[in-house]
């Protein structure tokens, strides 16, 4: 099967610094211009195209990048990622409605809260064997939702209303219906997350995660403080989820426990695996497709989730490593030994 990822990597490697800058800018420009394609075949029936770009697409991309640190880079199966998204959103909801802090001031607080809960969850959970981590994280996701559902201060099932939009920045107004502005802001957050992940991947942390993913025991015996790096992966993943949550709450103006179900965790996981676990471009592509698809096929009406399920089955069978898999750039040598 053609490996687009390798093709891309080849082109990238053969380019010089200036060419690379142009390629990168080209992609950013293309992503930034997406809101202008509402009139084309890209348009989504019924749902508003530009809203779909903000949520789920851009929001999923951001969360998938975050989850990819946990699952793609360090191989930890996290089924409760929605918890961090919820914690970010509720931080925004509470502080936004009860204090005079604005979205930009709450953003770091929300990220900190998500990171803190990443530590709270990670420290006990990450000592467990890999397979058990899945159920513990799943439980954590549910606990966060149930707490929100039962605590009066969090509005219980009614949720939190009238969450403020972000104040204007450099004259750019954020109104609840200026989807493009939100989309571009998210794009900046996404670029920042990509920068962070790429920066870490090529250095010590990236190698540590990679070694943990491939053989955790061997990593520890080679002096990698595996536990510390697993917690770090968790906490960084959480920070991205938290940031997404804060921004999400500030966009929809209203949050309720129903927004943070286990299905979101599973969908984001699907984005990561579907796109190509461990490869950030694959993950982004996966999130774009899985975020976009259900709205694009709304004309199927009743059957759209059924078709969505079928797409997952068929695609995973055809491309088990995802659309753009992680690097496998070498041809195996003839003398390869199993």
């Amino acid at each position, binding site marked *: 099967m053609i490996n687009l990822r390798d093709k891309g990597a080849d082109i990238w490697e053969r380019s010089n610094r200036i060419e690379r800058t142009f390629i990168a800018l080209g992609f950013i420009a293309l992503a930034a211009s997406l809101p202008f394609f509402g009139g084309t075949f890209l348009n*989504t029936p019924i749902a*508003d195209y530009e*809203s779909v770009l903000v949520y789920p697409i851009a929001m999923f991309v951001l969360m998938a990048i975050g989850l990819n640190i946990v699952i793609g880079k360090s191989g930890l199966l996290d089924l409760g990622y929605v918890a961090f998204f919820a914690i970010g959103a509720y931080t925004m909801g509470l502080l936004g409605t009860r204090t005079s802090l604005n979205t930009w001031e709450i953003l770091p607080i929300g990220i900190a809260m998500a990171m803190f809960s990443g530590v709270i969850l990670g420290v006990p959970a990450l000592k467990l064997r890999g397979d058990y981590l899945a159920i513990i994280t799943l439980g954590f996701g549910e606990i966060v939702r149930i707490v929100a559902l039962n605590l009066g201060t969090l509005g219980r099932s009614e949720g939190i209303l009238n969450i403020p939009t972000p104040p204007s920045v450099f004259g750019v107004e954020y109104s609840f*219906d200026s989807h493009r502005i939100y989309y571009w802001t998210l794009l900046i957050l996404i670029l920042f997350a990509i920068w962070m992940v790429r920066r870490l991947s090529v250095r010590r942390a990236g190698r540590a995660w990679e070694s943990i993913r491939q053989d955790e025991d061997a990593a520890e015996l080679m002096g990698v403080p595996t536990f510390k790096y697993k917690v770090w992966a968790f906490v960084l993943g959480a920070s991205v989820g938290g940031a997404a949550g804060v921004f999400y709450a500030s966009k929809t103006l209203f949050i309720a426990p129903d927004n943070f179900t286990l299905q979101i965790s599973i969908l984001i996981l699907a984005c990561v695996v579907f796109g190509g676990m461990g490869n950030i471009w694959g993950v982004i592509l996966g999130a774009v497709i899985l975020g976009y698809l259900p709205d694009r096929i709304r004309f199927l009406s009743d059957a759209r989730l059924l078709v969505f399920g079928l797409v997952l089955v068929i695609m995973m069978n055809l491309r088990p490593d995802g659309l753009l898999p992680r690097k496998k750039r070498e041809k195996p040598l003839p003398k390869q030994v199993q």
Partner: protein
Amino acid sequence: MKKRGLISVAAAAALAAASLVAYAPASNAAAKTITLAFQGPLTGEEAQVGQDELAGMLYAVKLFNAKNKGKYVVKVVRADDQGDPAQAAKVAPGIASNKKVIGLVGAAYSGATIASLPFYKQRNLAMVSPSATRVSITDPAAGAIGFPVFHRVVVTDKVQGPSLFKLATKGVSSPKVFVVDDQSAYGVGLVDYMKPGIPAGQSAGFDSVSDKTTDWSATIAKVKTAGANVVIYTGYFPQAAVFFKQLRDSGYTGVLAGGDGVLSPSFVTLAPASVLEGVRLTAGTVPLADISDKLEADFQKKMGKASGVYAAESIDATNIFLSCVSKGVSTRAAMLKCVKKFKGKSLTGANLSFDKNGDVAGGVMNGFEVKAGKIVFTGPVK
């Protein structure tokens, strides 16, 4: 072999999908085409409520189109929000900016309604919800966030909560009432508005049970230790049927009661008649079969399934828009004006109009009782 298997599965699914795509009335060149929208959960776990309401709306539209052949063709856009505020927030702007849509039946759920409101308010699209009962949407004390576009033909929890308590305890000497909610905004809201009206000494306790619960042993044990003789469930009928069944099977003999979420023709099919005998229910309107058996039969014939919980409300909500359509309304502004001023009759024959916040004016609570496997209307709750 393998691949062919997959492809044939895909093909079968595609066929299935194609056959499910809604049947749209053939438009007549001379007729004026009007588009209305429905918003509610049509797929996913909450799909039932939305599918039932949509059926009610389509039923009303079908009648209207048949009656006005050559004059009007009303089309329905289906906006599936899965009952989820997050989905609603991306569907609503789509509907809001679809200029053809001049009226919206929905949203089915309060949470989805709240998430959608800003977009409809901005684009001046009149909404009439058959089932969003949360008080805060129209409550001036909570900012009346629905004003001016939001209307509802269903009575709010504020009215229903106390009525339900009244009906449940009617004729019970020294009642001890145990109230169970389903953790939904609807169920919790009902309890919140019921609580202040419960006289001292009549409360036996409260429980809050996820609507995904299958085993009710613990709640039943609590009911028993509390010595309750009246149990009220504020949730929807599928769970109510299971809960009541388990409660009765465990030997509980007291009164059982529920709100309009339980009042569905399907409710009595979910448990043996002997178990549900005497269950008391409240609702703003009545099931189609209680209005007339003929109506229900016609509904089943035209829609191919039994009517659901908010069928009457959905039909009422749709009829409000349709009556405006037959008055020649074809723009959003005119529609909103027309809906605000609407004065007419509901399916039950009661007067139907809205107060200035969009609530149904003078709504009454009706009482019902299950008798021999049927839900029977017992008159307004006083």
